[in-house]
């Protein structure tokens, strides 16, 4: 390490500011509510070797899977100033709606690092408007696949020809590209001030520092052979449970999660590439570390994730994956937490364990002639109570941390009406500390439209811990009739879709 204590702090702030700024450029100048209102996007800086140096704290499932994106680009002989685009889950992506732009940052004539911006685009084509289809059996049904390629005007035209809402995509991509370029400008400004050697060394030292902090924290937890199994409620094709099994070993400051025993890849789209599983494990590890440890590539050096080839959490092409990124990732995190709890590690009870993905789309015939539209949102729920505090209510838990779409934005821009939006009082599990309550959100269709719901925890309740009660399972109700956890359907004007999200588990015996 060449940086002293002071330099670490100074440069850590400098890199983090650049990543935060990249995120703000995207949020403030994009057009899709899913990006600008819900902030379903993330930004990070990587060094020339593909190690993450700094991130803006956005969406956990994005950030842990970004190194694969940079690795995919580095294999293509990137030239300084090149900007790449990708969404292929089997070559650096997570699921198709997450489109990642990677800029090779020019510093003194060479590639000095990478600026990475990932955003969930609520339309990448595929069989269903909104590109989160329930029950897709192959990735080809889920949308257009972009292996890592240079983002040329031709590539953009090809992409836009495959989606229902090209104008919105074009505008969001322009904002995303501007965010990537802002990252490059930021790094070059830093180099101008401190010199390239200093900046490069600082990036490396920050990673080493984070790794050291992570290992020190993990060394205080000695636990081996912690095993747990939890399950998904079907894959959208059928509704049989699918087991996720983990064994966790924390030894000598290293965290190893192995998923041997997990179900094979499913026919539906709850599969995920290993990058997503790694994100989920990294998220759990991150919650165990002190708050001031920088989240960068150093942390993941203390973490190893293994899973049999072709299983649910290490799927192979062409398994469908749309729900894997959003639902299976949640269950992986739940399962790892469960294993830790069995080893006596102080972790919270289970939270809602789902993102309650709701997608609508169609052709608006209510005045805006034939305009195709797509809308995507996820809905928060109850957080599990922790050993020292109740679980927060009505929040995103685990691998997501998006915001809601304001009702006024939703109704101004889409043929939907929100009939009610409330906390689901009493849905959190009882306990010494109660679990957080879920959310009720009721949509009325104003025109005919397609709808897709990808959710979990409709059958199996979020578990309480240390004697705490379970959270109430979620419910999806169409015109009063319950629907399964993953379902695609057509809505007619006047149809009412009500989503009740799960409560979190309680902690400790109620007093």
């Amino acid at each position, binding site marked *: 390490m060449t940086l002293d204590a002071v330099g670490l*702090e100074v440069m850590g702030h400098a890199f983090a500011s650049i990543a935060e700024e990249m995120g*703000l450029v995207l949020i403030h100048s994009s057009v899709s509510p899913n990006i*600008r209102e819900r902030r379903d996007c993330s930004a990070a800086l990587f060094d020339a070797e593909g190690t993450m140096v700094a991130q803006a704290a956005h969406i956990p499932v994005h950030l842990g899977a970004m190194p694969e994106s940079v690795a995919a680009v580095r294999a293509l002989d990137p030239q300084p100033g090149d900007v790449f685009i990708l969404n292929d889950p089997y070559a650096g992506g997570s699921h198709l709606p997450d489109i990642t732009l990677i800029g090779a940052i020019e510093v003194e004539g060479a590639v000095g690092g990478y600026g990475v911006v990932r955003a969930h685009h609520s339309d990448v084509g595929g069989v269903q408007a909104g590109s989160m289809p329930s029950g897709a059996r192959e990735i080809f049904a889920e949308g257009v696949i972009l292996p890592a390629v240079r983002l040329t005007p031709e590539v953009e035209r090809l992409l836009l020809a495959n989606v229902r809402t090209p104008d919105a995509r074009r*505008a969001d991509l322009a904002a995303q590209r501007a965010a990537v370029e802002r990252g490059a400008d930021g790094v070059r400004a830093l180099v101008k001030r401190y010199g390239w050697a200093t900046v490069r060394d600082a990036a490396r030292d920050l990673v080493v520092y984070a790794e050291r902090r992570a290992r020190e924290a993990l060394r205080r937890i000695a636990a081996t052979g912690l095993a747990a199994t939890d399950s998904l409620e079907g894959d959208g094709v059928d509704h049989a449970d699918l087991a996720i099994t983990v064994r966790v070993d924390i030894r000598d400051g290293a965290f190893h999660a192995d998923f041997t025993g997990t179900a094979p890849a499913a026919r539906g789209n709850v599969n995920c590439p290993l990058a997503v599983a790694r994100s989920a494990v990294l998220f759990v590890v991150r*919650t165990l570390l002190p708050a001031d440890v920088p989240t960068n590539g150093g942390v993941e050096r203390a973490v190893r994730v293994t899973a049999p080839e072709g299983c649910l959490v290490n799927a192979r092409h062409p398994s469908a994956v749309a729900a894997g990124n959003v639902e299976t990732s949640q269950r992986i995190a739940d399962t790892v937490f469960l294993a830790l709890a069995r080893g006596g590690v102080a972790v919270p009870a289970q*939270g809602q364990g789902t993102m309650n993905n709701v997608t609508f789309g169609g052709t608006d015939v209510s005045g805006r002639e034939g305009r195709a539209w797509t809308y995507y949102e996820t809905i928060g729920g109850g957080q599990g109570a922790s050993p020292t*505090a109740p679980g927060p*209510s009505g929040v995103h838990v685990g691998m997501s941390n998006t915001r809601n779409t304001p009702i006024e934005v939703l*109704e101004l821009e889409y043929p939907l009406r929100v009939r009610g939006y*409330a906390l689901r009082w009493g849905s959190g599990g009882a306990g010494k500390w109660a679990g957080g309550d879920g959310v009720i959100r009721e949509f009325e269709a104003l025109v005919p439209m397609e709808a897709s719901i990808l959710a979990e925890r409709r059958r199996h309740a979020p578990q309480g811990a240390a004697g705490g009660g379970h959270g109430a399972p979620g419910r999806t109700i169409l015109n009063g009739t319950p629907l399964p956890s993953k379902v695609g359907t057509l809505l007619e004007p006047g149809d009412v879709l009500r989503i009740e999200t799960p409560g979190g588990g309680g902690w400790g015996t109620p007093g």
Partner: protein
Amino acid sequence: MAVRVGVDVGGTFTDLVALREDGAIEVRKVVTTPDDPAVGMFRALDALDGGRPRPPIDLLVHGTTIATNALLERTGARVVLVTTHGFEDLLWLRRQDRADLYDLAGDHPAPLVARRCVVGVAERMGPGGALESLTDAEVARVVAAVRELEPQAVAVAFLFAFRYPEHERRIAAALRAAAPGVPVAASHEVLPLFREFERTSTTVAEAYLRPKVSAYLSRLDRDVHARGVPALRIMTSAGGTLDPAAAAGRAASLALSGPAGGVVGARLVGAAVGFTELLALDMGGTSADASLVTGGAAVTDGGGAAPGEGSIAGIPIALPSILIESVSAGGGSIARVDDGGALKVGPDSAGAIPGPACYGRGGTRPTVTDACLVLGWFDASSPLADAVRLDPAAAEGAVAALGPVVGGAGGAAGIAGGIVAVATAVMARALKRVSVARGLDPRRMALLVFGGAGPLFGCALADALGIGSIVIPPHPGVLSALGLAAAAERVDVLASFHRPLGQLDAREIGRAYTSILMEAARQAPGAACLRFADCRFAGQGYELTVPVTEDDPREIADAFRAAHRTRYGHTGSGQPIEIVNLRVVALREGPLPQFAAAKRSARAPVGRRAITLSGERLTAGVWSLDDLAPGVTLDGPAVAAGRDATGLIEPGWRGTAHPSGALVLQRR
């Protein structure tokens, strides 16, 4: 000869600046009286007399923390929220994002209203008007239900009221008629902008603060008049001033009343020395506040620009406010070494009690002030403004105690150097978040440093940000009060508009401003009215505010595209441009302070002293900051010690005393 007085009531001190017509400035500093801030305020005012008859004061401008403290300490009114039925939980749902990404036990602060004090109303507006009409029977039911809850204030916030306020108007009128003594804040009056959570939260904050703020202001107004001061005005978060009656009805707009004065002061001093692009840093006891002046005007945030990001004490308040980025790097911020070996400053602060170790009031943990003393930047032999004597041995002991962990850095001075470097880095990040993060290059700006400790860090911060000019204002320790004394009268009026620019002609644009121009003129008679438009590309969720000098839509489009390119680096992808809101700012500038430097005559240092800078032991000239003769130059290393603040001129910098009393530093 008339006098304007600015009074800044801070957490520890109440600062008063009297600004005479001839530019002469008088300063008083007394201890704040938290139980009743007016007591300290009048003590300061009485101290101004100093036994001699003073010229009449014709205006007193007040920067108050009463709203801020009520939010921080949760001591506002018992509020009932009246809202659209089916959406009563909105304040608890917030925007669904959790308080902390990785601390799963962390939660947001509770709303300012109790859940049982929310009354749902059978009514509903949608994007095209009424979906469910509001019946007279329902109005009567709601009025009765509200009375039952015995509120001290009521907030009314319905969906889509920013566009269709009729239902809110009827309920508010009925509530006011039924209980004239209970203030009612309606969302279409407080913040007529889309995004229901931010609008509701802001409206509730207004109701929560209004009884306390209006009681304080009306009593203060009376007392001020009783002392022969004919006019009192209150600083708003946006940097303008309101008369007490108007301020009492916009209580939430006073949430940053205190720091706003400093930004106004920074702008005026910048103008006096010829800088219109300024980064300002106010370094006080527990925090440092960074802000921005560009084009000679303070940059504001909030409103439609960044909903949810403007929050005070965890309560989103989306009203126009001066952009302030606070970091915990004040003089009293405590330094520590974390378990990974990194040196940290803050967020813990030694506060006023026990204070830094060198204050000798029982503090033992090393603070930034202790580090500065160890480095010789403060003179241990002269007391601080509050008669506190500095104990260098205590400072050294506290700082040296960090030693074994830091490693490398030699002795107390080495560690102290580390502490000030970390504090500098933290403050530099705040300065970058108000500049770089907004697409503005700090290298094209001057850095204005104020507050008791700010001028010590000017050179280090300028080096970190690549800035070439630094301004140390006259009386840097009381610049906020000076800003208050000189502040403009400012009224912001806003109207939701939402029309595609391409479908408008010049006549329509001109006409659209008529009613808000009239409203602004009504609130601030005789003031100059400036027009602005919040524009965006169709589909975007955030607007950029551009000045509207011509009615021509093409001019507005050009101004917007240029602003968008500057801020975001692109100009969209061919989407049409929309005007979302119209704004009028009515502005009546205060008389410019002349900053006359009547008795400034020092042309030579008053002594020399050993100081430590970047690990080097140097001999610095010591000057009297408040007494520098215009034109005199100070080459670094030099220390300029004033009554309320100390400045540091590092090697490589040269300070020139400006006729205004400011000290302007340039790289040599």
